[in-house]
């Protein structure tokens, strides 16, 4: 058995670490933990890149933060959430509806212009077609 092992229980060893030594040991351990924690925080910051994200998408980040706060505030399972989701779906559908309306308007206008450019049938042809038609 080594001297170090004996010093664990303090009964057999000649060398017992003094208070100063223990304090040094605790201090160095604390320093190590602090360094590791700082590195971990720096890694997390690099991974999340919150500053960069705030630079690129400021509104999206603020919305996300507000959403996190809303959930933390206990608003997730409320009627307001349902209403908000419905409004969000409607807002998301606006571009599609707009596109459809524009398409319909274009088709209608092109139909009008095509009809306007067609030559009007004369009275004679209309009367004969009317007679033979029915």
């Amino acid at each position: 058995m080594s001297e170090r092992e004996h010093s664990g229980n303090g009964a057999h060893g000649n060398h017992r670490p003094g208070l100063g030594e223990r304090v040094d040991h605790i201090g160095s351990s604390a320093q190590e933990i602090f360094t590791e924690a700082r590195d971990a925080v720096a890694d997390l910051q690099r991974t999340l890149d919150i500053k960069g994200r705030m630079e690129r998408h400021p509104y999206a980040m603020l919305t996300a933060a507000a959403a996190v706060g809303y959930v933390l505030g206990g608003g997730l399972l409320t009627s307001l959430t349902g209403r908000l989701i419905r409004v969000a779906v409607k807002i998301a559908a606006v571009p599609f509806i707009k596109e459809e309306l524009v398409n319909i308007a274009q088709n209608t206008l092109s139909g009008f212009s095509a009809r306007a450019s067609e030559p009007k049938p004369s009275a004679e042809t209309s009367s004969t077609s009317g007679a033979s038609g029915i």
Partner: protein
Amino acid sequence: MEATQQLKQKAREVEERLGPQIEEAKKNLNDLNTRIKSFIRERPGMCLLGALAFGFIVGRIASRR
């Protein structure tokens, strides 16, 4: 045909009348957007915390109802 011409004329008049106002409003909105974005970029932490707090308060109010 005359009705179409009148309609076109009306549309042109409206566009001429409202065009500068719309442009002005667009410019103001762009300006405001730029200012808000620069404010957020200068103080990202504060803005994030503010948004978080705002969401929290809204969530609290919603859960009490």
